[in-house]
């Protein structure tokens, strides 16, 4: 069975349809909403397998199907689907993990009033994530990227009546959006320079030689090649989404969402989208590698950020006591590993680790969900303990996940993918600092995972909730078991002896293996480091289990200063609140103040000026113009009064006047000599 690229849209469309059904289902329609979501996801999984078959048949090809979205000027804005091994592997992983987590959720959330809404959001997330994977256009990828952010926002704030959840959701959206603005600018720049956003378009795409050649040839601010600048801007988006330093602060807070959400979105899939993005545009990111006289290569920055994040996340995870936060910081750290791998030039190692990590981290999160659900929403490891007995399936699977994450040799998938990354870092000729950061993180990872398992499952219950815990129903344990199986087996897809996955991703049909012990020094070193980590963790937490919930942490007792700093996560949140937060408030106050006290005042001044003119005008009217008229009128009236005095009303007087007048007339005529 194989799926042609023209039908690739079906993979995201089915969950989208399920989301539509979920949004219109009333609250009572639980079965319909969850059923539609799970069935859609399962069919998408089968389709993804079909797509994988298509892609593996010709792994070197980028199968595309492009179409016009809307007309713009002389051309059109075009989108498209892309099918290559990278897309296909990612789709299979997302749909498989997604289906299992959907099933788990029906058990985890079966008491929640907004059950249907939850599946609507989950399906929306899956649709967006799958859309992101099949996109053959940076624009379509960006659209899905933002929708993924929306779904994440809605799901983190799913228990929106909790103010902390609502605040965490907002923080996640805004923090990732800061990175997204970089991605947006990078995309605009790319669009402006190449006139296209399609990845592959028969030679015209932005990841193909013509466009890349043009981008590398131009330089911009600070002597950077344009491709470097665009690559770094796009990488900003990845920093935000994948919780890389310095935008990692949202990811631990995102654990306010329901645990299946943390498993699916904030561990297995969405946060890996940043890694996927960099892997997808890898030709662009690495285009500047051939340039010698540039200040910095894009991938060097990626490696540096990845190394810092890997170490930082692992350090902070050591001192957290919330089971989900430990896992969250471990995710931050592991994503740092993947970025490190991308940066040192081995994107296949990054994707290999992405895939294995998706399974074992989903497993760990679902396991923690199982614990939390059983312990009545107690998630502080200091108050748990002793769950090994009552929760056997959960313990067993969680332990497998822990060993995969810690990189216990040979049997577990995490070992192989981590080894691939360390090898790549070792072979990087620019600097060995990322390798040292990675090795340090190996010890720390093994240490904090041992601490987590020891505190949660060993010893004796340290609270009422923990002592009443019992194993969950099959709907929750079966997904755990399936994931645990994958967490073990998946590693064998990419062992150095037979690196099938790497070969297919790079487009080779033959697999060239190396002896496992080729780089034996590094291999042995990392095995020793894992042993040191687990051993010290067990020595501190497993041998003498915590007595009660309030007892001091062993590290806290010995190094209180360091522990406090780690527990406070190096104070990043406080730092941001004091800088960015203040700046933001100041900017808002400035804008509002400008309006209120400058522009509005100017308008008021103009209005007052107008009013003043009115006053002047009135005074002039009243005193000067009207006064003049009044005076004239008064004089007229006086004259009239004096004339009217002659009107006595006596007819004789008038007659006398007439007679006198007549006589005068006669006299004038006669004396004038007229007759």
């Amino acid at each position, binding site marked *: 069975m194989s799926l042609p690229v023209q039908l690739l849209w079906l993979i995201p469309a089915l969950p989208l349809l399920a989301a539509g059904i979920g949004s219109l289902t009333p609250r009572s329609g639980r079965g319909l909403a969850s059923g539609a979501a799970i069935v859609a996801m399962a069919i998408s999984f089968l389709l993804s397998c079909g797509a994988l078959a298509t892609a593996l048949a010709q792994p070197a090809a980028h199968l595309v199907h492009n179409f016009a979205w809307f007309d713009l000027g002389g051309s059109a804005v075009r989108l498209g689907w892309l099918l290559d091994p990278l897309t296909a592997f990612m789709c299979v992983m997302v749909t498989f993990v997604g289906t299992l987590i959907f099933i788990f959720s029906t058990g985890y959330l079966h008491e929640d009033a907004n059950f249907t809404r939850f599946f609507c959001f989950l399906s929306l997330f899956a649709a967006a994530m799958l859309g992101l994977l099949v996109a053959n256009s940076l624009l379509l990828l960006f659209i899905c990227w933002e929708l993924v952010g929306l779904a994440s926002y809605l799901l983190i704030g799913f228990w929106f009546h909790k103010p902390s959840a609502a605040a965490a959701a907002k923080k996640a959206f805004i923090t990732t959006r800061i990175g997204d603005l970089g991605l947006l600018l990078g995309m605009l720049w790319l669009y402006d320079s190449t006139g296209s956003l399609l990845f592959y378009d028969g030679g015209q795409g932005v990841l193909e030689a013509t466009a890349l050649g043009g981008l590398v040839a131009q330089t911009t601010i600070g002597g950077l090649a344009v491709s470097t600048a665009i690559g770094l801007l796009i990488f900003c988006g990845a920093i935000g989404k994948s919780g890389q330093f310095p935008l990692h602060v949202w990811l631990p807070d995102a654990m306010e969402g329901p645990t299946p959400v943390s498993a699916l979105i904030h561990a297995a899939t969405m946060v890996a989208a940043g890694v996927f993005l960099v892997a997808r545009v890898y030709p662009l990111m690495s285009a500047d590698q051939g340039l010698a006289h540039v200040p910095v290569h894009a991938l060097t920055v990626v490696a540096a950020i990845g190394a810092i994040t890997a170490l930082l996340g692992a350090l902070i995870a050591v001192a957290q006591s919330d089971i989900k936060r430990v896992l969250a910081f471990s995710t931050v750290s592991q994503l740092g590993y993947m970025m490190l791998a991308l940066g040192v030039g081995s994107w296949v190692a990054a994707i290999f680790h992405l895939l294995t990590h998706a399974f074992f981290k989903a497993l760990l999160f679902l396991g923690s969900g199982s614990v939390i659900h059983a312990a009545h929403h107690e998630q502080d490891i200091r108050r748990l303990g002793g769950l090994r007995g009552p929760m056997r399936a959960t313990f067993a699977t969680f332990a497998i996940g822990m060993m995969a994450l810690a990189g216990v040799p040979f049997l577990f998938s995490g070992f192989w993918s981590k080894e691939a990354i360390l090898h790549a870092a070792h072979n990087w000729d620019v600097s060995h600092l990322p390798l040292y950061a990675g090795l340090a993180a190996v010890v720390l990872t093994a240490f904090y995972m041992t601490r987590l398992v020891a505190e949660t499952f060993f010893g004796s219950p340290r609270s009422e909730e923990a002592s009443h815990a019992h194993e969950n129903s099959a709907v929750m344990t079966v997904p755990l078991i399936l994931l645990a199986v994958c967490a073990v087996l998946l590693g064998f897809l990419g062992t150095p002896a037979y690196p099938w996955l790497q070969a297919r991703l790079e487009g080779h049909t033959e697999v060239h293996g190396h002896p496992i012990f080729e780089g034996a020094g590094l291999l042995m070193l990392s095995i020793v480091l894992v042993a040191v980590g687990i051993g010290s963790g067990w020595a501190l937490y497993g041998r003498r289990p915590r007595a009660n919930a309030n007892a001091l942490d062993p590290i806290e007792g010995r190094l209180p200063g360091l522990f406090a700093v780690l527990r406070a996560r190096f104070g990043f949140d406080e730092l941001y609140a004091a800088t960015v937060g203040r700046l933001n408030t100041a900017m808002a106050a400035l804008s509002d103040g400008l309006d209120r006290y400058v522009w509005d005042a100017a308008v008021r001044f103009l209005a007052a000026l107008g009013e003043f003119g009115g006053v002047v005008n009135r005074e002039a009217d009243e005193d000067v113009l009207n006064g003049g008229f009044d005076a004239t009128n008064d004089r007229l009236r006086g004259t009239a009064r004096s*004339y*009217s005095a*002659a009107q006595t*009303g*006596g*007819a*004789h007087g008038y*007659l*006398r006047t007439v007679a006198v007048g*007549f006589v005068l007339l006669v006299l004038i005529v006669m004396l004038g000599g007229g007759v």
Partner: protein
Amino acid sequence: MILTPLHLCLLLSSALFCIGLIGALSRSSSILVLLGVELMLNAANLNFIAFWRYGPNPAAGTGVLFVLFSIAVAAAEAAVGLALVIAIYRHQRSIRLQDARRLKG
């Protein structure tokens, strides 16, 4: 100075006018004042006739026509005057002109 018929006529009319004027000025009864005024008017009419009859073109009937109009107007005027007198009488029970001073300015 030879007294032509015109001169005689003019003397008569002058006398008539003076009688009318003195009458109008000296009487206090409104009706008598009105009579005086009529006399003065008729003196004027007599002048018109005399100047026509002894004027350069006695063949044309202009003088007679003028006087006829004048008499008709005088008749109407007398009627109005008498009506005024009656109205005054109604108001103040007297026709003495000295009493009718209400229309002063």
